[in-house]
């Protein structure tokens, strides 16, 4: 009798400890990045590209990496969004029979689990095969592939939740399959779709392994898709690998910039989610 209550008490304490560990690690991460990053953050860091001896501690900034990250992640997310929307709609029962869609879901699950470094290696192999080297384009493709399973998964989940009655209503008004999917189902599933896209964007902008080889690294802002480009995560990685402490300090500032961008994406997504939930049937 008392043993049962005791057991519950013990596990309750363990739960508190666990959640404290989880929140504590987030707190440590944010405070470390802010404390270390803020000291070496300056205006020139976000307005200038690196000068000759930047990696030896000379002046300059990481504008090339900030621009590069946006050039990589935004088109990649756009592409991944279009492709994912197509797949997610196609996965509905109206379009495919369940056995095919379960196969597609399985392969998406496998893609979800493939490490980003493999996407990087894969894309570079294809690029070399086509006679192109590391470039913005290769980086975009790698990130697109990385984001597709992430975005599709959350779209699929939210589209699956759309009540059947709603679809039936649309059909009974004479809509075609695609119209139903695009005009009705999409609206109802909008919050989930948005959440998926922003999840993908966040993942894409923060991922280093897939663009480590594909996007290359340069001090210049890319002018065409065949130029190689720096990005924030790879920049952090490079700065971090430097043996000079002053340069390493800049990695923290870059990390702070990246974290702020990611946080902004997260806040925007919450805001958009709330806004897009207005027309939703509960």
């Amino acid at each position: 009798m008392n043993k049962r209550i005791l057991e519950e008490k013990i596990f309750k304490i363990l739960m508190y400890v666990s959640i404290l560990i989880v929140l504590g690690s987030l707190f440590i991460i944010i405070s470390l990045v802010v404390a270390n990053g803020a000291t070496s953050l300056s205006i020139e860091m976000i307005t200038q590209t690196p000068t000759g001896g930047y990696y030896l501690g000379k002046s300059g900034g990481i504008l090339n990496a900030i621009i590069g990250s946006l050039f990589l992640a935004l088109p990649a997310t756009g592409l991944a969004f279009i492709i994912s929307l197509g797949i997610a709609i196609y996965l509905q029962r109206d379009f495919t029979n369940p056995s095919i869609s379960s196969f597609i879901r399985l392969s998406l699950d496998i893609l979800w689990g493939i490490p980003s470094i493999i996407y990087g290696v894969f894309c570079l192999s294809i690029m070399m095969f086509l006679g192109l080297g590391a470039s913005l384009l290769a980086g975009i493709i790698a990130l697109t592939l990385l984001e597709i399973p992430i975005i599709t998964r959350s779209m699929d989940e939210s589209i699956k939740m759309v009540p059947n009655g709603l679809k039936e209503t649309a059909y009974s008004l004479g809509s075609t399959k695609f119209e139903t999917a695009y005009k009705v189902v999409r609206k109802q599933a909008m919050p989930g779709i948005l959440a998926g896209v922003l999840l993908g964007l966040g993942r894409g902008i923060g991922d280093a392994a897939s663009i480590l080889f594909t996007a290359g690294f340069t001090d210049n802002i890319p002018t065409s898709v065949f130029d190689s480009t720096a990005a924030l995560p790879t920049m952090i990685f490079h700065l971090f690998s430097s043996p000079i402490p002053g340069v390493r300090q800049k990695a923290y500032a870059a990390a702070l910039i990246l974290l702020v961008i990611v946080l902004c994406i997260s806040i925007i997504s919450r805001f958009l989610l709330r806004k897009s939930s207005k027309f939703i049937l509960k």
Partner: protein
Amino acid sequence: MLIKNGSFDKKWLMDKRKIRDLICTKLMLIITIIVSILFFLIFLILLSKSSLILGSESITDLLFSSNWNPSNGNFGYFPVIVGTIIVTGLSLIIAIPISLLSAIFIAEYAPRKIRKILRPFLDVLAGVPSVVFGLCAFLFLVPLVRDFIAPFFGIESTGLCLFTASITLAVMVFPIIISLCVEAFSSIPLELKEASLSVGATKWETVKKVIFRATAPSIISAILLGFGRAFGETIAVNMVVGGIPKVPSSLFAPTETLPSLIASKYGELMSIPKSESALMFGALVLFIVVLIFNLLGLILLRNAKKRWKL
């Protein structure tokens, strides 16, 4: 005449709708097919790229030899594979209980207000880029392990070691497992909990015997997703694992994992065909393990679902 015209327009409009419907549907089909055979394509490319090394070395040598010396043409993956398994395994051993308990707390015990506050925190943690995780681990965990934890066990360590890497990975896996489990726990019908509570079970007994059981498939897939993330994590591990391809002698010894090895060696070895091919073989191994675990997870899920007809 006008009416006729109108009906003609209408008909043409209908056809346009139908055509658009057809085009879009077929387009979606094509995209879907391409994406769903993508993993096969990746497999083929990795295989063809690693054919060079597979032709010159035996696969058992590659997998089970401990001799890693690229400049002499020795590519024994054994230490790296062992390192990967230990780092991933240890991180999951840390992450699973903490994540499950946190998820239970959030879904079942926390009042609604606290639950609402906790959700965004988890989202933020999930969104932290891996390179930032690595940086923070380097800044915080490495000195901690070097100066306090390892000496406590009487071992000298640089702090760049298996243990640090595992903790880092565990923290990265937390938000994945927690948010998926919270979702699963909250999707359980309230009445099922009531059924258990009303025979006099405590909340914890209900969690342990009913909720865990009813959500077993979702918990399994959450853990597998977490495993996938930990297993393939590259940059964060690379920054703290030590980067020495040796079977670790203790918790606090440096080691190396497959993805981290590829990341740090690919740049310098890609110009040598044999070395590049050897690294591609590493990527292939990584890919196959991920594939096997996915299929395993699927079978587990199916069985669990069949057993309780969920």
